[in-house]
């Protein structure tokens, strides 16, 4: 009879009930103060109480599914197992996400097919002239724009080269890539925080720590850059938001969920601890709170009236270098 079978549990419960009834019924007969009667009391009480206890134990075991056979309980069953080992993941798996690209000047154009997200995007990767041994990386979300004209122009400004790897991300059909994983939709979080970073780090002299990575966005596209530096601060430590959406313009109803497509920085900072990130708010006239809500340490903000992309990229490059050293 199986340890978890209904028959066994019911039978045990019936026996326990019978012994309990017998105890109550025989009680007066064991009242005399003779050694025999006292021994009888102890024997009857011990056996009936232990039986009720075992009913409880067997019932709990069957309910939670701990021991499913007697040999399992007593450890006498076979402990043998068979391992079907399929080995480890290929070491170069992250590098395989990028196709070989075409280079024009300092910019290489290539295609990223995210291993984890399945999202395909066009990357324009800028590597600084005379690059140092290692350098930080800046992600520019241009998926909502027709072209990233301002960013491309800033990078070809030979007079003041940006001292960081810059990767401009857009898509062939102009569709946007959400900042986070969408329930029932695109896995944007997997794309931005894992696919993109791991692919770039596998091909260039960029590390994978948050202090190596920053993000830049303009207008509504700055939401992702802010999301990375605030809500994904173990992967991105800095953001530059050019002309970001003021806090008051973010409707509360669409932004209470971290998985929702739009990101509300003020809601995030009101709900979770401030991260140790650095944020540039460019083209903003009010205090940082007007965009981010409750700004507090260790989060550091810089506000600038200047909306120039070149300046924002340089600020990010310098900030990330400063964090590193």
């Amino acid at each position, binding site marked *: 009879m199986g340890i978890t079978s209904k028959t066994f549990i019911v039978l045990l419960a019936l026996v326990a009930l019978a012994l*309990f009834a017998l*105890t*109550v019924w025989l*009680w*007066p007969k*064991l009242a005399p103060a003779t050694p025999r009667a*006292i021994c009888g*009391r*102890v024997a009857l*009480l011990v056996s009936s*109480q232990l039986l*009720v*206890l075992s009913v409880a*134990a067997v019932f709990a075991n069957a309910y*939670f*599914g*701990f*021991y*499913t*056979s007697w040999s*399992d309980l007593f450890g006498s069953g*076979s*402990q*043998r*197992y*068979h*391992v*079907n080992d*399929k080995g*480890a*993941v290929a*070491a170069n*798996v*992250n590098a395989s996400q990028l196709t070989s690209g075409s280079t024009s000047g300092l910019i290489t154009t290539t295609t990223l097919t995210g*291993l*984890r997200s*399945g999202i395909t995007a066009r990357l324009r990767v800028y590597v600084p002239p005379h690059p140092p041994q290692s350098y930080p990386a800046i992600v520019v979300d241009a998926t909502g724009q027709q072209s990233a004209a301002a960013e491309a122009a800033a990078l070809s400004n030979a007079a003041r080269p940006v001292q960081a790897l810059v990767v401009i991300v857009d898509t062939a059909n102009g569709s946007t890539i959400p900042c986070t*994983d969408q*329930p*029932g939709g695109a*896995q944007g979080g997997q794309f931005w925080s*894992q696919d993109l*970073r791991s692919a770039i780090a596998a091909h260039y002299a960029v590390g994978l*720590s948050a202090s190596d990575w920053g993000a830049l966005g303009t207008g509504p596209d700055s939401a992702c850059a802010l999301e990375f530096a605030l809500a994904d*601060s*173990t*992967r991105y430590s800095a953001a530059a938001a050019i002309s970001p959406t003021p806090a008051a313009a973010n409707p509360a109803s669409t932004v*209470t*969920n*971290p*998985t929702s497509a739009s990101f509300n920085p003020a809601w995030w900072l009101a*709900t*979770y*601890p*401030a*991260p*140790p990130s650095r944020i540039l708010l460019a083209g903003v006239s009010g205090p940082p709170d007007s965009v981010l809500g409750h700004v*507090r*340490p*260790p989060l550091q903000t810089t506000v600038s009236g200047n909306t120039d992309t070149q300046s924002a990229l340089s600020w990010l490059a310098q900030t990330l270098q400063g964090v590193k050293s």
Partner: protein
Amino acid sequence: MSLTGAPFLILLTVVTVAIFVLLVYFWPRLSGGGPKGITLRVAAFAVAQLFLLSTAAAYANSYFGFYGTWNDLLGVANASSSRSYTFAAPTPLGAGATEDPITITGHQAVGLPGDGNPAAVGQILDTTIKGQTTGLSADAMIYFPPQYFQPKYADTRFPAVIVSSGYPGSVVKLVTLLRYPARLAGGIATGQDKPMVLVMMSPMIIPGRDTECTDVPNGGPLAGTFWSQDVTTAVERDFRVATDARGWGLVGDSTGGYCALKLAMMNSDKFSAAASLSGYLDALQDGTTGDLYDNNQAFRNLNNLTWRINNLPSPPIAALLSTSKTGEDNYAPTMAFAAAAKAPMRVSTLIRAQGGHNFNTWNAEVPAALQWLSAQLVSSPPG
């Protein structure tokens, strides 16, 4: 008085025995006839029984380590009665960037001859890890292998493995019952295992709430981020462990197994290997979890590992899934998962002919899981 401590257990035992003795002694007084006599006897029997049950439950809890504190136990009772849960916003960390996220509170014995000599058997630190990004915090026992203390390895950053108990479950049982550190030390000595750092934790990071390592929407606790990002970042900051995915793995039993596989699948840039011992694959919801998914089936799907493997790209990780043909509910789902996984993911299986959801099973599987993790993970620089 602690729930699992000797004083409480002794007190319960003494009271239980005393009630038994009193019952035998005052037996004749309860021998009256009629309904009154019978009622008295039934009541006396019930009181004695209740104490015996409590004593047995307390001993079982102490042995298996389900609930470590009164807070854990009562939290569950409260959570399941109201089924609601509100998450107080964590206090700001202040100068969090410079604050040490790991507080060392003591030491634990490894449970091997030579205890006290780290270079011989390693060392276990009792710590509390405070999450910089989530504001959550949890106790962790961190095991450092003997090599960590040997001059030859002074420049090595060791592979690190997050080890999780089930739910409910306590961290200390990972040391005393499943004996991960002692088994790893033994495996290293025989050359079967690599020196690795073990970060041992319990999914009970919030009293009374089984978060299933989930980032709960709508301002709920970001438990998934805590495990995958806060813990790894803090350990990398304070100790000589690898900082890339090829050096980080996870292992756990039951809920801990589900967490291990889920965290690796969702954070394959941080972890490259996960061993799930008797882990389930669906996104659990019951009285102890409350609503973790914002009542949103699409979001719940993202936490259902069977759904993920069928509907999303298979992530670049290696997984070891254990199950048994009789005794476990997860046999069919596990085999279906392994069949559905595509490259670059590698799914290995550990299949027993028999064995239930219990410590006998996991005790037999821990050495195999450690050996498998040793084969997956690399230190940096490789040594």
